[in-house]
Protein backbone atom coordinates (compact mmCIF):
# COMPACT_ATOMS: atom_id res chain seq x y z
CA UNK A 1 0.00 0.00 0.00
CA UNK A 2 1.27 3.48 -0.88
CA UNK A 3 2.29 5.77 1.98
CA UNK A 4 2.56 9.54 2.33
CA UNK A 5 6.06 11.05 2.18
CA UNK A 6 7.58 12.92 5.13
CA UNK A 7 7.31 16.17 3.19
CA UNK A 8 3.55 15.73 2.79
CA UNK A 9 3.18 14.76 6.45
CA UNK A 10 5.16 17.86 7.53
CA UNK A 11 2.97 20.14 5.42
CA UNK A 12 -0.18 18.56 6.85
CA UNK A 13 1.12 18.91 10.42
CA UNK A 14 2.11 22.55 9.85
CA UNK A 15 -1.27 23.55 8.39
CA UNK A 16 -3.18 21.54 11.01
CA UNK A 17 -1.26 23.32 13.79
CA UNK A 18 -2.15 26.72 12.31
CA UNK A 19 -5.80 25.68 12.02
CA UNK A 20 -5.87 24.43 15.62
CA UNK A 21 -4.21 27.60 16.90
CA UNK A 22 -6.72 29.83 15.10
CA UNK A 23 -9.80 27.78 15.93
CA UNK A 24 -9.15 26.77 19.53
CA UNK A 25 -7.40 30.05 20.41
CA UNK A 26 -10.53 31.93 19.39
CA UNK A 27 -12.75 29.47 21.26
CA UNK A 28 -10.71 29.68 24.47
CA UNK A 29 -10.63 33.50 24.42
CA UNK A 30 -14.39 33.66 23.92
CA UNK A 31 -15.08 31.07 26.64
CA UNK A 32 -12.89 32.92 29.16
CA UNK A 33 -14.56 36.25 28.34
CA UNK A 34 -18.01 34.62 28.59
CA UNK A 35 -17.11 33.28 32.05
CA UNK A 36 -15.85 36.69 33.21
CA UNK A 37 -19.00 38.40 31.93
CA UNK A 38 -21.14 35.85 33.77
CA UNK A 39 -19.34 36.40 37.08
CA UNK A 40 -19.62 40.16 36.71
CA UNK A 41 -23.31 39.89 35.89
CA UNK A 42 -23.97 37.60 38.87
CA UNK A 43 -22.13 39.96 41.22
CA UNK A 44 -24.19 42.94 40.02
CA UNK A 45 -27.45 40.97 40.11
CA UNK A 46 -27.00 39.70 43.67
CA UNK A 47 -26.22 43.21 44.81
CA UNK A 48 -29.40 44.52 43.11
CA UNK A 49 -31.54 41.70 44.57
CA UNK A 50 -30.23 42.38 48.08
CA UNK A 51 -31.21 46.01 47.65
CA UNK A 52 -34.68 44.95 46.36
CA UNK A 53 -35.05 42.69 49.40
CA UNK A 54 -34.09 45.45 51.82
CA UNK A 55 -36.57 47.82 50.18
CA UNK A 56 -39.34 45.24 50.34
CA UNK A 57 -39.67 45.05 46.53
CA UNK A 58 -39.17 41.29 46.63
CA UNK A 59 -39.71 38.67 49.34
CA UNK A 60 -37.11 36.40 50.96
CA UNK A 61 -38.60 33.53 48.94
CA UNK A 62 -38.22 35.57 45.72
CA UNK A 63 -34.60 36.33 46.59
CA UNK A 64 -33.82 32.66 47.16
CA UNK A 65 -35.45 31.72 43.88
CA UNK A 66 -33.36 34.33 42.04
CA UNK A 67 -30.14 32.98 43.57
CA UNK A 68 -31.07 29.37 42.74
CA UNK A 69 -32.02 30.54 39.24
CA UNK A 70 -28.50 31.90 38.84
CA UNK A 71 -27.16 28.42 39.56
CA UNK A 72 -29.48 26.98 36.88
CA UNK A 73 -28.34 29.68 34.49
CA UNK A 74 -24.68 28.80 35.21
CA UNK A 75 -25.45 25.17 34.31
CA UNK A 76 -27.03 26.27 31.04
CA UNK A 77 -24.00 28.40 30.26
CA UNK A 78 -21.65 25.49 30.99
CA UNK A 79 -23.71 23.34 28.61
CA UNK A 80 -23.47 26.05 25.96
CA UNK A 81 -19.66 26.11 26.28
CA UNK A 82 -19.54 22.31 26.10
CA UNK A 83 -21.62 22.42 22.91
CA UNK A 84 -19.50 25.16 21.37
CA UNK A 85 -16.36 23.15 22.20
CA UNK A 86 -17.83 20.14 20.37
CA UNK A 87 -18.68 22.35 17.39
CA UNK A 88 -15.08 23.66 17.38
CA UNK A 89 -13.75 20.09 17.42
CA UNK A 90 -16.04 19.15 14.52
CA UNK A 91 -14.86 22.22 12.59
CA UNK A 92 -11.24 21.25 13.24
CA UNK A 93 -11.81 17.68 12.04
CA UNK A 94 -13.49 18.92 8.85
CA UNK A 95 -10.67 21.41 8.27
CA UNK A 96 -8.04 18.77 8.94
CA UNK A 97 -9.58 16.44 6.38
CA UNK A 98 -9.57 19.21 3.79
CA UNK A 99 -5.90 19.96 4.57
CA UNK A 100 -4.93 16.30 4.14
CA UNK A 101 -6.75 16.04 0.84
CA UNK A 102 -5.52 19.38 -0.46
CA UNK A 103 -1.84 18.81 0.46
CA UNK A 104 -1.79 15.24 -0.77
CA UNK A 105 -3.56 16.01 -4.06
CA UNK A 106 -1.14 18.89 -4.71
CA UNK A 107 1.81 16.58 -4.01
CA UNK A 108 0.60 14.19 -6.67
CA UNK A 109 0.94 16.99 -9.19
CA UNK A 110 -2.55 18.29 -9.96
Amino acid at each position, binding site marked *: *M*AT*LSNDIKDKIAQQAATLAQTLFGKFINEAVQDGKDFLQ*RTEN*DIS*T*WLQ*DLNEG*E*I*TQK*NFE*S*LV*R*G*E*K*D*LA*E*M*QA*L*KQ*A*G*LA*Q*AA*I*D*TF*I*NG*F*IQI*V*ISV*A*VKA*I*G*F
Partner: protein
Amino acid sequence: LLLASFANPKFYNDVLSRKMTFVVGWGTIHSDQCDISCWRIGNQLFGFFMIPYMPFLGEVFGANRFLPRLLTAISQKSVLIFLTASITACSTISAYDQTAYQQAVNTKVDALVLMDKAVEPYVNHRNDIAAFQTELQKAYEYERGRPLSKITLAQWDILRDPNRDLLGGFLKEWKQEGKLMPVYVERKKDQIGAAFDQIIQLESGKIKTAGG
Protein backbone atom coordinates in the same frame (compact mmCIF):
# COMPACT_ATOMS: atom_id res chain seq x y z
CA LEU B 1 -16.65 3.01 -14.80
CA LEU B 2 -13.49 5.06 -15.16
CA LEU B 3 -12.82 4.52 -11.47
CA ALA B 4 -12.22 0.79 -11.96
CA SER B 5 -10.88 0.83 -15.48
CA PHE B 6 -7.32 0.06 -14.42
CA ALA B 7 -8.31 -2.86 -12.22
CA ASN B 8 -7.54 -6.48 -13.01
CA PRO B 9 -10.60 -7.68 -14.96
CA LYS B 10 -10.90 -10.55 -12.49
CA PHE B 11 -11.54 -8.04 -9.67
CA TYR B 12 -13.28 -5.39 -11.75
CA ASN B 13 -16.70 -5.70 -10.05
CA ASP B 14 -15.19 -5.81 -6.57
CA VAL B 15 -13.03 -2.72 -7.22
CA LEU B 16 -15.90 -0.81 -8.81
CA SER B 17 -18.26 -1.66 -5.94
CA ARG B 18 -15.67 -0.61 -3.36
CA LYS B 19 -14.92 2.70 -5.05
CA MET B 20 -18.55 3.51 -5.64
CA THR B 21 -19.14 3.06 -1.91
CA PHE B 22 -16.84 6.01 -1.32
CA VAL B 23 -18.55 7.98 -4.07
CA VAL B 24 -22.16 7.56 -2.89
CA GLY B 25 -21.56 7.03 0.83
CA TRP B 26 -22.87 3.44 1.05
CA GLY B 27 -22.47 0.12 -0.77
CA THR B 28 -20.54 -3.14 -0.66
CA ILE B 29 -16.85 -3.47 0.18
CA HIS B 30 -15.47 -6.99 -0.21
CA SER B 31 -18.97 -8.49 0.33
CA ASP B 32 -19.68 -6.35 3.41
CA GLN B 33 -22.52 -3.84 3.36
CA CYS B 34 -21.17 -0.45 4.48
CA ASP B 35 -22.78 2.89 5.26
CA ILE B 36 -20.05 5.52 5.51
CA SER B 37 -22.23 8.59 5.09
CA CYS B 38 -21.41 9.72 8.63
CA TRP B 39 -17.74 9.92 7.62
CA ARG B 40 -18.75 12.90 5.50
CA ILE B 41 -17.50 11.29 2.38
CA GLY B 42 -19.63 10.17 -0.45
CA ASN B 43 -22.20 12.54 -1.89
CA GLN B 44 -20.99 15.64 -0.01
CA LEU B 45 -17.37 15.27 -1.00
CA PHE B 46 -17.90 13.65 -4.36
CA GLY B 47 -17.67 17.02 -6.07
CA PHE B 48 -14.53 17.83 -4.10
CA PHE B 49 -12.78 14.60 -5.07
CA MET B 50 -13.74 15.15 -8.68
CA ILE B 51 -12.35 18.71 -8.87
CA PRO B 52 -8.77 17.66 -9.73
CA TYR B 53 -10.05 15.36 -12.46
CA MET B 54 -12.26 17.93 -14.15
CA PRO B 55 -9.68 19.55 -16.47
CA PHE B 56 -8.64 16.10 -17.61
CA LEU B 57 -11.98 14.47 -18.19
CA GLY B 58 -12.62 16.50 -21.32
CA GLU B 59 -9.10 15.90 -22.55
CA VAL B 60 -9.31 12.17 -21.93
CA PHE B 61 -12.23 11.81 -24.22
CA GLY B 62 -10.45 13.84 -26.92
CA ALA B 63 -6.83 12.77 -26.59
CA ASN B 64 -5.51 9.47 -25.25
CA ARG B 65 -2.16 11.00 -24.25
CA PHE B 66 -3.67 12.06 -20.90
CA LEU B 67 -5.13 8.68 -20.12
CA PRO B 68 -2.09 7.00 -18.55
CA ARG B 69 -1.45 10.03 -16.32
CA LEU B 70 -5.10 10.22 -15.32
CA LEU B 71 -5.29 6.54 -14.47
CA THR B 72 -2.11 6.72 -12.39
CA ALA B 73 -3.48 9.73 -10.56
CA ILE B 74 -6.77 7.96 -9.92
CA SER B 75 -4.86 5.03 -8.50
CA GLN B 76 -2.90 7.32 -6.17
CA LYS B 77 -6.00 9.25 -5.21
CA SER B 78 -7.85 6.10 -4.34
CA VAL B 79 -5.16 5.52 -1.70
CA LEU B 80 -5.79 9.06 -0.45
CA ILE B 81 -9.49 8.43 -0.24
CA PHE B 82 -8.84 5.45 1.99
CA LEU B 83 -6.40 7.41 4.11
CA THR B 84 -8.74 10.34 4.60
CA ALA B 85 -11.68 8.05 5.23
CA SER B 86 -9.74 6.28 7.95
CA ILE B 87 -9.07 9.53 9.84
CA THR B 88 -12.53 11.06 9.58
CA ALA B 89 -15.10 10.90 12.37
CA CYS B 90 -18.81 11.51 12.72
CA SER B 91 -20.07 14.88 14.01
CA THR B 92 -20.33 15.08 17.76
CA ILE B 93 -23.08 17.74 17.82
CA SER B 94 -25.92 18.65 15.49
CA ALA B 95 -25.31 21.30 12.84
CA TYR B 96 -26.97 24.73 12.94
CA ASP B 97 -30.70 24.54 12.29
CA GLN B 98 -32.57 27.69 11.29
CA THR B 99 -35.92 26.34 12.55
CA ALA B 100 -34.48 25.43 15.96
CA TYR B 101 -32.88 28.87 16.21
CA GLN B 102 -36.10 30.64 15.20
CA GLN B 103 -38.17 28.57 17.63
CA ALA B 104 -35.86 29.44 20.52
CA VAL B 105 -36.04 33.15 19.65
CA ASN B 106 -39.84 33.12 19.24
CA THR B 107 -40.34 31.16 22.47
CA LYS B 108 -38.11 33.63 24.33
CA VAL B 109 -40.13 36.61 23.09
CA ASP B 110 -43.45 34.93 23.95
CA ALA B 111 -42.17 33.85 27.37
CA LEU B 112 -41.14 37.41 28.27
CA VAL B 113 -44.49 38.80 27.07
CA LEU B 114 -46.34 36.20 29.16
CA MET B 115 -44.19 36.89 32.21
CA ASP B 116 -45.27 40.54 32.15
CA LYS B 117 -48.78 39.32 32.91
CA ALA B 118 -47.65 37.56 36.10
CA VAL B 119 -48.38 40.73 38.11
CA GLU B 120 -52.05 39.93 37.46
CA PRO B 121 -54.01 36.89 38.74
CA TYR B 122 -52.97 33.56 37.19
CA VAL B 123 -56.57 32.55 36.61
CA ASN B 124 -57.10 35.56 34.30
CA HIS B 125 -54.42 34.24 31.92
CA ARG B 126 -55.04 30.51 31.91
CA ASN B 127 -55.63 30.43 28.17
CA ASP B 128 -52.48 32.44 27.40
CA ILE B 129 -50.45 30.15 29.66
CA ALA B 130 -51.88 27.01 28.05
CA ALA B 131 -51.13 28.35 24.56
CA PHE B 132 -47.59 29.24 25.57
CA GLN B 133 -46.98 25.83 27.14
CA THR B 134 -48.06 24.21 23.88
CA GLU B 135 -45.59 26.38 21.98
CA LEU B 136 -42.86 25.51 24.47
CA GLN B 137 -43.62 21.82 24.11
CA LYS B 138 -43.45 22.09 20.30
CA ALA B 139 -40.00 23.72 20.46
CA TYR B 140 -38.84 20.99 22.84
CA GLU B 141 -40.23 18.15 20.74
CA TYR B 142 -38.61 19.60 17.60
CA GLU B 143 -35.27 19.59 19.41
CA ARG B 144 -35.88 16.07 20.70
CA GLY B 145 -36.33 14.83 17.13
CA ARG B 146 -32.97 16.14 15.98
CA PRO B 147 -29.91 13.88 16.03
CA LEU B 148 -26.98 14.78 18.32
CA SER B 149 -29.03 17.33 20.27
CA LYS B 150 -28.28 15.99 23.76
CA ILE B 151 -26.69 19.21 25.02
CA THR B 152 -29.42 21.54 23.73
CA LEU B 153 -32.06 19.20 25.15
CA ALA B 154 -30.35 19.34 28.54
CA GLN B 155 -30.55 23.14 28.35
CA TRP B 156 -34.29 23.02 27.55
CA ASP B 157 -34.78 20.54 30.43
CA ILE B 158 -33.26 22.98 32.93
CA LEU B 159 -35.29 25.87 31.54
CA ARG B 160 -38.62 23.98 31.61
CA ASP B 161 -38.25 22.06 34.87
CA PRO B 162 -40.99 23.20 37.30
CA ASN B 163 -38.82 22.10 40.22
CA ARG B 164 -35.99 24.44 39.22
CA ASP B 165 -35.94 28.23 39.25
CA LEU B 166 -36.15 29.32 35.65
CA LEU B 167 -39.20 29.33 33.34
CA GLY B 168 -40.85 26.14 34.62
CA GLY B 169 -40.37 27.23 38.23
CA PHE B 170 -41.66 30.71 37.50
CA LEU B 171 -44.91 29.44 35.96
CA LYS B 172 -45.40 27.06 38.88
CA GLU B 173 -44.77 29.88 41.35
CA TRP B 174 -47.24 32.15 39.54
CA LYS B 175 -49.88 29.44 39.76
CA GLN B 176 -49.23 28.81 43.47
CA GLU B 177 -48.99 32.47 44.48
CA GLY B 178 -51.83 33.74 42.28
CA LYS B 179 -49.82 36.82 41.24
CA LEU B 180 -46.25 38.02 41.68
CA MET B 181 -44.52 41.27 42.68
CA PRO B 182 -43.63 43.59 39.75
CA VAL B 183 -39.92 43.99 40.62
CA TYR B 184 -39.55 40.23 41.09
CA VAL B 185 -41.14 39.64 37.69
CA GLU B 186 -38.67 42.11 36.10
CA ARG B 187 -35.68 40.40 37.73
CA LYS B 188 -36.92 36.97 36.67
CA LYS B 189 -37.44 38.23 33.12
CA ASP B 190 -33.75 39.24 32.96
CA GLN B 191 -32.68 35.85 34.29
CA ILE B 192 -34.95 33.76 32.09
CA GLY B 193 -34.12 35.91 29.05
CA ALA B 194 -30.42 35.17 29.71
CA ALA B 195 -31.26 31.46 30.01
CA PHE B 196 -32.92 31.50 26.59
CA ASP B 197 -29.83 33.30 25.26
CA GLN B 198 -27.70 30.29 26.22
CA ILE B 199 -29.79 28.08 23.92
CA ILE B 200 -29.83 30.67 21.15
CA GLN B 201 -26.07 31.32 21.34
CA LEU B 202 -25.29 27.60 21.26
CA GLU B 203 -27.48 27.13 18.18
CA SER B 204 -25.91 30.09 16.37
CA GLY B 205 -22.41 28.80 17.23
CA LYS B 206 -22.98 25.42 15.58
CA ILE B 207 -21.52 24.59 12.19
CA LYS B 208 -23.49 26.07 9.32
CA THR B 209 -24.00 23.55 6.56
CA ALA B 210 -25.01 24.33 2.97
CA GLY B 211 -28.55 23.16 3.73
CA GLY B 212 -28.71 24.93 7.11
